[in-house]
């Protein structure tokens, strides 16, 4: 609904399937962006229809390609597993029970020396994706906006503080979502922005009182 010229004539992508290949490459890129750099090891879980058809759709190549920073139109995707071996990226792939209510879902655990993340995402068709979970927190990120993922103590005034800092930098908020482990515990805030967020702003948010971490998740293609 509400199609545009380039939603009909596109995306430009590596085949065969916008949901099982292009969308999966995007989910791989999201996991890389959440980790904040190249992973050294990854574990992929394919669920639902992915579990039975991931090989024939090249979803394994697409997710590993995305994790190595390839976008969904990158013609190196068919060679992604070979490239991963050359680069020494350690990967395992398993299939299993549902991680999400959606028929096309996957789980990515990715790590490097600095960090380790767990992400659950779904491919919604036409290359559209949704990241539903990061490290156990419910989120909703579709990869179309430059986003921030902020972990902070659950205290009054956090939203206002962060929103006004972004406003002072002329960064408009498109969507925002809050989630907490328990009242007064650790809370997660995701902010999808209309504009890119500069490194200084990200650092300043990260240094605010009661903020544990602030990560920038660039949009994916």
């Amino acid at each position, binding site marked *: 609904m509400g199609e545009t010229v380039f939603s009909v004539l596109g995306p430009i992508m590596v085949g*065969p399937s916008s949901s099982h290949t292009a969308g999966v490459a995007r989910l791989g890129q999201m996991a890389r962006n959440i980790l904040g750099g190249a992973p050294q090891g990854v574990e992929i879980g394919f669920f639902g229809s992915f579990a039975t058809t991931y090989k*024939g759709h090249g979803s394994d190549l697409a997710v590993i390609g995305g994790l190595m920073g390839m976008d969904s139109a990158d013609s190196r995707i068919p060679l992604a597993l070979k490239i991963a071996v050359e680069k020494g990226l350690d990967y395992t792939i398993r299939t299993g029970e549902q991680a999400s209510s959606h028929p096309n879902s996957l789980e990515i655990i990715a790590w490097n020396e600095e960090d380790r993340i767990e992400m659950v995402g779904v491919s919604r068709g036409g290359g559209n994706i949704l990241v539903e979970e990061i490290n156990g927190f419910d989120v909703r990120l579709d990869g179309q906006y430059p986003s921030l993922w902020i972990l902070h103590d659950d205290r009054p005034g956090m939203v206002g503080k962060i929103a006004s800092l972004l406003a002072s930098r002329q960064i408009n908020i498109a969507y925002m979502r809050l989630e907490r482990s328990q009242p007064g515990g650790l809370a997660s805030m995701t902010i999808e922005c209309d504009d890119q967020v500069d490194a200084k702003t990200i650092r300043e948010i990260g240094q605010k009182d009661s903020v544990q971490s602030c990560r920038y998740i660039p949009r994916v293609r």
Partner: protein
Amino acid sequence: MKPLWTFENWLSRSREEGLSLAEVILKKEMEATGAKKDEIMDGLEERLQVMRESLKAGLEREKTTPGGMIKDESKTLNHFFSNNRPITGSGVIKTAIYAIAIGQENAGMGRIVAIPTGGSAGIVPGVFFSIAEDKKLSDDQLKEGLLIAAGVGMVVGEKMGMAGASGGCQAECGVAAGMAAAGALFLLGGRGEEVFQAFALAVKNMLGLVCDPVGGLVEVPCVKRNGFAAVQALLAIDLVRGGLKSVIPPDEVVDAMADIARLLPSALKETAQGGLAQTKTGLNLSERLQ
């Protein structure tokens, strides 16, 4: 509420503003997305180039696809028809081979433009490039044809999703045939109402087409179906040129397709639970994949 984007609105906007059908889409896109004309033209140029590369690569392809059911179809056909005359006609077989080549490229993880989807990616470029060679059409003309094809997809998208999973294959290869027919007729000088008639005739004959791919992969019947759908588009163009008209108006054909999309059982919507996917051979092939 914004009125639905229909063939009728498209036509009346073209008449009222004195713009060609392609210019209406260009203007509409500029209004809707805030993009400049140059940016849209560059986007069309990029797509045209990717389509051309995928055609070239597909015609050369010999490597078996990940699902193992598709290999070197267009090469085989080209080889045969370089020494044999087709029963159908040289333009027809060329169009089919082009569409199949890009279908193979998609199945084999080549780079393609999903138009409107990956599974149906060969139909519009197959028809356009084959006609462009015969009629010596320029890239600027082809871009106008792409604007028409996009406008058609925008009309359909108002009423239904263009994906096998939501509407069956009529929503992928059927829509692509309609886009190709309308776009190519415009390229051939068709104007006004007759452009949409080509859409209507092509799509009417693909209504109800189910999506039953073997093993749930975009290989069988998808790749060869690109060839058939492209040829449907050619026939629709000639029937309209020859003076025929769809008794059911183009906008109502879209209504019918959306209605059928709702009525189709989910077993025939990309789930591999019916049709070809559930044949003895289909089941054997899909078992071998796992």
